[in-house]
């Protein structure tokens, strides 16, 4: 391999990226060294097993990935703004929509939600941490390393360009040569390990570590949504693991699962991919549903309407999620009977989803609604998500889908569900729980600007795309002719996309502004309206052990009961006992680094490097197995000091 094949060359945009990456790295190294922050970085972050810190790192990575995926999106919209544009060529455009899709789903939406779950769920169920804190660190670092491996593809070796669905035989060696597609396979595989471990970890945490008195049907809705999501993860992610492994065998070791030669079968890939892919969509929507339930109930100052129906609706959605995958390829010619069955099963999902929408509406009915920023996101969600929902039902009608399939109608639909659902949810959750993470709120005035810019930009961007689809514009084309008549709506759409971009910048500015100027919180219940246990901690940012004394729960919304009954919740000295906590460990970070070495080696088919990396991974596993990892005890004195108990 020559050097000019190793580093991507020839494109000014990429040289620009090279320079900015280089400068950022130098800047970071300088900052860490000059301010002597290396030890702080290692002790406080790289080796931490604290669920709150890991959650913050998840969210920070997700915001970074949102930036990367967003830049991809703006490049695409710039290219499509006018007919016959020459800004990007076909290959470059193909790479960009591939990385946009993959990054947004796998490295933005999921980690953002998993990050919020990490921060909130143990607090919400009154636990000290997750069931397996060490494993939680392994989850984060494998996700992060997988994401980084995928991301360096655009400067080293070249990005994948077969779409985030990576249909075979297109993604095979014959039609997509080079390391690009290998990056996709290994980046997703490594981060997939982390996701599966998160699934197991939180299932055990939620099932086994709830505070005394918190029965299943007293769990907050966000905890319910996390529990159900984790079940989906545990059963869906192994399918992705296998599918990716099989394609890796095809590309690296000459197997014939999906290839053109050797009697492979490309349709098998499409089936396996969507057998994981459809549940994946619900993995990124259900936690958002859970957060909206919390936020709407909180700011409408009212008990969630139809709690049990909300739970069962989510259980049904999770079950259906495994039974609808064929609707992603009604046009494959599988026959009328199959299409009929999957049309109906898909439409059935509309029923529990509809139930949830009406329950949210009626949670506000006879309430007392405050229009805070998290609530605005939740209201925006209801209004916009139903548009995505009803067009989803339209797409479920197979006979009509033959006309929508592969068009901008579909593109618009899934952005309406994923942005109005998942992204609005992430932003709502971020703003809502921001004081829990950092001890101060994001500025509300700027926050509302962010909301309106983003929400309006979003509609201007995607609403016209329904009509582009009905006018026959296929997705994934890098340009179109003036004669097609698609120019005007595309220009409108591009303008909307840039307005969303401005909204994102406003969010980043808000993070900076609030860091500088926001008033610091000094109570555990920052909004003054909290309902669930995370608002029952004694300080704005909970100490590493979360609760000095494990709370007991007597019903739904325990914090409302505390507030209404004016109960004194400051921990009594007599109740304070030494708390057992797990030790920090650098092994997860080191293990993930070995995964990077192995993954990078396999991407370029340097097998010696792959083997070295895997041996490293095994050594870290053995070290962990022999580690007695007994943890340590937080002394009563330390707790007294942290909780400012003077008596």
């Amino acid at each position, binding site marked *: 391999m020559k050097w000019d094949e190793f580093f991507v060359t020839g494109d000014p945009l990429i040289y620009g990226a090279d320079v900015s990456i280089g400068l950022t790295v130098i800047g970071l190294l300088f900052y860490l060294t000059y301010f002597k922050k290396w030890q702080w970085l290692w002790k406080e972050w790289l080796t931490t097993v604290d669920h709150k810190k890991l959650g913050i790192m998840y969210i920070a990575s997700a915001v970074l990935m949102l930036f990367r995926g967003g830049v991809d999106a703006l490049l695409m919209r710039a290219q499509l703004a006018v007919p016959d544009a020459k800004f990007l060529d076909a290959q470059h455009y193909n790479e960009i929509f591939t990385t946009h899709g993959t990054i947004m789903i796998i490295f933005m939406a999921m980690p953002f939600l998993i990050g919020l779950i990490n921060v909130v769920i143990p607090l919400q169920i009154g636990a000290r941490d997750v069931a397996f804190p060490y494993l939680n660190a392994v989850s984060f670092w494998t996700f992060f390393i997988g994401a980084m491996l995928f991301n360096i593809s655009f400067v080293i070796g070249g990005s994948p360009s077969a779409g985030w669905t990576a249909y075979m035989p297109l993604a095979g060696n014959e039609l997509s040569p080079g390391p690009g597609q290998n990056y996709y396979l290994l980046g997703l595989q490594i981060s997939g390990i982390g996701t599966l471990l998160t699934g197991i970890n939180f299932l055990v945490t939620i099932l086994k570590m709830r505070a005394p008195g918190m029965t299943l049907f007293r769990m907050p809705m966000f905890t319910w949504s996390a529990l159900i999501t984790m079940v989906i993860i545990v059963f869906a992610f192994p399918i992705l693991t296998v599918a990716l492994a099989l394609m890796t065998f095809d590309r690296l070791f000459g197997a014939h699962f999906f290839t053109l030669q050797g009697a492979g079968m490309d349709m098998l890939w499409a089936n396996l991919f969507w057998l994981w892919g459809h549940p994946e969509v619900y993995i990124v929507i259900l936690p958002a549903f859970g957060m909206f339930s919390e936020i709407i109930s909180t700011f409408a100052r009212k008990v969630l309407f139809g709690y049990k129906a909300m739970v069962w609706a989510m259980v049904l959605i999770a079950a259906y999620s495994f039974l609808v995958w064929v609707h992603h390829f009604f046009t494959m010619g599988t026959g009328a009977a199959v*299409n009929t069955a999957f049309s109906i099963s898909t439409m059935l999902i509309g029923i529990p989803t*509809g139930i949830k929408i009406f329950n949210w509406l009626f949670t506000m009915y006879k309430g*007392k*609604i405050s229009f805070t920023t998290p609530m605005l996101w939740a209201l925006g969600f209801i209004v916009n998500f139903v548009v995505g929902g009803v067009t989803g039902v339209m797409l479920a009608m197979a006979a009509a889908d033959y006309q929508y399939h592969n068009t901008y109608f579909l593109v618009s639909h899934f952005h309406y569900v994923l942005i109005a659902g998942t992204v609005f949810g992430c932003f709502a959750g971020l703003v809502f729980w921001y004081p829990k993470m950092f001890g101060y709120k994001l500025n509300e005035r700027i926050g509302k600007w962010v909301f309106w810019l983003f929400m309006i930009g979003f509609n201007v961007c995607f609403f016209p795309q329904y*009509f582009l689809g009905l006018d026959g514009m296929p997705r994934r084309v890098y340009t179109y002719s003036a004669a097609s008549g698609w120019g005007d709506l595309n220009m409108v759409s591009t303008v909307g996309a840039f307005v969303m971009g401005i909204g994102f910048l406003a969010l980043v500015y808000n993070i900076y502004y609030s860091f500088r100027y926001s008033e610091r919180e000094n109570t555990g219940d920052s909004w003054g309206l909290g309902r669930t246990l995370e608002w029952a901690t004694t300080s704005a940012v909970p100490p590493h052990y979360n609760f000095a004394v494990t709370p007991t729960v007597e019903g739904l919304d325990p914090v409302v009961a505390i507030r209404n009954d004016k109960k004194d919740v400051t921990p009594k000295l007599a109740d304070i006992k030494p708390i057992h906590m797990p030790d920090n460990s650098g092994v997860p970070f080191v293990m993930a680094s070995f995964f990077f070495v192995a993954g990078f080696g396999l991407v370029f088919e340097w097998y010696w490097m792959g083997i070295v990396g895997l041996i490293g991974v095994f050594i870290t596993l053995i070290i962990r197995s022999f580690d007695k990892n007994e943890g340590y005890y937080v002394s009563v004195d330390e707790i007294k000091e942290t909780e400012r108990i003077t008596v």
Partner: protein
Amino acid sequence: MFKRLKPFFALGLMLSVFFLGGCSNYIVLDPKGPVGAQQKDLILYSIGFMALILLVVYILFTVIVVKYRENRKDMSNWEPEQEGSKKLEILWTAIPILITIALSIPTIKTIYDLEKPPQASAHKEPIVITATAVDWKWIFTYPKQGIETVNYVNIPEDRTVEFKLTSADSMSSFWIPELGGQKYAMPGMETTLYLQADHKGKFAGRNSNFNGEGFTHQIFDVNSVSQSDFDKWAKDTKTKAPELTKKQYDQLMLQGEAKKMTFSSTHLKWVDHAKNRDYAVKTRERLGVVPQNPHGSKAKDANNPEQDSHGESHSH
């Protein structure tokens, strides 16, 4: 407070205006044959229901958000403990079930209808045309007429065309939006798509399933002509057009775009792509075309595969 919610309201209004108003401007809603017409009917039927659902949700939303805002005067109707209503919950479970049934019935009927030739011309025997996708062109074979075209297809008006779809390499989707919905064309497989043009005219067809660099330009023309013009064209082609040589056909198997071509013979004597998945890949190997990393130096210099006889096939 109401002011703040105006955008939501405007959005709802926009939805209904767009959906119910300017239908005929959009290709899919202005079909030129019975298949597309059936799909249009189904689409409009569903849009009706969807508009109704949106209307109900938006009205409820607006009323609730305005009426129960925090800074209202009369707070006596604040019931923080109200936790549900069996009646209401049954209502909004039952209505979606009814809507699902109402949508399912015509959907299923149309799904089954589209698997057969359209009823309108059931008395005429369909004309069979094989459409083969190759990166990034379409090859049309008329087995009965014994002729073949590239990147355009002539069809008789008012008669069902039975397209037999297959692919020589990547998974493609055969779509003529003005005539009706699409179906995949896959290597080693054959799928069937019935379409029909009611009148004479020229329609745009394309591959709509992403398959790499030349995807955007993998398009073809559909010419609907009268039956007599069609017969005359088929006969002329059989007698006057050049014969398709194997060498020429193998050049077509290389990745790249192609101009329109017409031949008096078909490729079926060498290969049936519906039964043979790897003909194109093996041909490329035989002709010494090695797949190149798009970022590799070789790909950047000159990735012109051996020049083909018709001199049109090119890759970037």
